[in-house]
């Protein structure tokens, strides 16, 4: 019996969620096996440190939902897996459901808390974009997708370090990838970002994004937007945070010129620290803000950028 986790990579690096999953798996008090597709020895070491006992390394597999699901299912069966933890990422959403069906296992998606043991686990997941949370009890086997940035990382796990290199046939894959175009190579994805700088109607126009982008750049943050800014055509909808956009859970969310409509608050309300910068002292966003600045964002944001540059020693 074991817990299986799936590692995902981005630009040649292990995504933080990959380590979060093995750390979360440790809490279930059983063997944790991480599946690493197209990764390196270095990535396996990082997974061991974060809580994996075993790493199954599988090489040379082009991504497709069908291929990955077939590989994961094969390993899960071999290891008699009871719990399969998958990132709630764009890719995870492609293959997690397929794994559940192949294993005849139930599945719970977008989970922020997991506890229990290998026989029965309890999970918590936000619903209605975080307007409420559901606690669910499930017998295993179970597939769970976990929201990035919600699990505490184990830094230096001292367990067995068993590395297996395997060849698994991914079967006959029907959907073929013909072309990939990286539009924002290296940019941090909103749903996995630990810091987000977000703008709303208060930024007044698309020409002002550089003000926010400068702050985002010094913080290594992703750029978000409210629905008002997206609907005005100031930025692509892929940046939209909220109930009809993306739900995010960063450590720090900096809302600039955002009034705080209910749909927006739902999408970012579970951020650990919220900063609101808005001229209007009655804006709804101040009701959820940890720190509020009532002032002109065009003065406050550049001053913050300069202050952080000093702090980090960036010229």
């Amino acid at each position, binding site marked *: 019996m074991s817990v299986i986790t799936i590692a995902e990579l981005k630009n040649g690096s292990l995504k933080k969620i990959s380590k979060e999953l093995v750390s979360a798996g440790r809490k279930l008090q059983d063997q944790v096996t991480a599946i690493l597709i197209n990764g390196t020895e270095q990535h396996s070491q990082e997974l061991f440190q974060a809580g994996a006992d075993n790493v199954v390394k599988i090489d040379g597999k082009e991504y497709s939902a069908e291929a990955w699901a077939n590989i994961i299912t094969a390993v899960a069966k071999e290891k008699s897996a009871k719990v399969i933890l998958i990132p709630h990422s764009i890719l995870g959403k492609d293959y997690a459901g397929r794994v559940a069906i192949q294993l005849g296992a139930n599945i719970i998606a977008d989970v922020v808390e997991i506890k229990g043991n290998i026989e029965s686990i309890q999970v918590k997941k936000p619903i209605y974009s975080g307007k409420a949370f559901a606690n669910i009890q499930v017998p295993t086997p179970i597939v769970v997708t976990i929201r990035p940035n919600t699990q505490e990382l184990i830094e230096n796990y001292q367990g067995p370090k068993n590395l297996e290199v395997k060849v698994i046939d991914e079967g006959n894959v029907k*959907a073929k*990838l013909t072309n*990939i175009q990286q539009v924002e190579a290296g940019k941090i994805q909103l749903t996995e970002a630990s810091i987000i700088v977000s703008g709303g109607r208060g930024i007044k126009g698309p020409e002002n994004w550089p003000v926010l982008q400068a702050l985002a750049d010094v913080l290594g943050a992703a750029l978000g937007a409210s629905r008002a800014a997206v609907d005005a055509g100031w930025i692509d909808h892929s940046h939209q945070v909220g*109930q009809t956009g993306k739900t995010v859970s960063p450590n720090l969310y900096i809302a600039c010129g955002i009034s705080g409509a209910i749909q927006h608050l*739902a999408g970012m309300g579970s951020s650990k620290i919220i900063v609101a910068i808005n001229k209007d002292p009655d804006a709804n966003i101040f009701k959820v803000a940890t720190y509020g600045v009532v002032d002109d964002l065009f003065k406050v944001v550049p001053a913050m950028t300069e202050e952080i540059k000093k702090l980090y020693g960036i010229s």
Partner: protein
Amino acid sequence: MKIAVLIKQVPDTETQISAKISGNKINESGIKWIVSPFDEHALEEALRIREKHKAEVVAISLGPDRVQEAIRTAYAFGVDKGLHIRDTSYNTLDIFYTANVLAAVLKKENPDVILTGHIAIDSQSSMVPAMIAQILGIPNINNAIKVEIQNSKVKVTREIEGGIADVETELPVVITATKKLNEPKYPTLKGILAAKKKNIEVIEVDTLGLNIPRIQIISIEPPPPRPPGRIIDGETPEAKAKELVRLLREEAKVI
């Protein structure tokens, strides 16, 4: 060609859910129901495919009697047939069950294309489309921003992390829609009135002969209360910025 569009009825985004929680359920009284916004893009795409290719568009929804209202909306958009899988035990978080029920009906309908939104704004699981594809043994392509069908082939441009990708496959296929796929043409008054008279085919879920293990929701709770916030004082915007950065560094420890 036949296109099935899976539509889900969800509470309007204005709904204050906290006030509606009772034990392990959401109290439905007074909720305004809408078609999940991304499913409208799936409906629109189905109708656009029908314009180019001869196709029948079937809208399918699972749930209690109230979901017939969502099927009426689909009729107002212009679908050819509305199908209601009536299930009073339906629960939005029970996705293994949902996928199996929908797949059982889709097996009988045998569509060439299955379209739906990439996420439902209530449960936010995004898993059911891939699960249906697995049950039916067909490919799934999520987060589509462009769909081109030619004969039995389909080419989809989809969003991936940090970019876009082209994926090709043979029909049948499951495709999920993003906002970027199209701009829905909202129903006219004439369309809405005509939709009221259309026949909705009803399938009772019990007649499907399925026996699927269900999940147990123990409780639903409001979000944890946020600690009271603090307004940063300062003579100038620069002074406020400086104090804010200090607090983020020293107190909150997030930068």
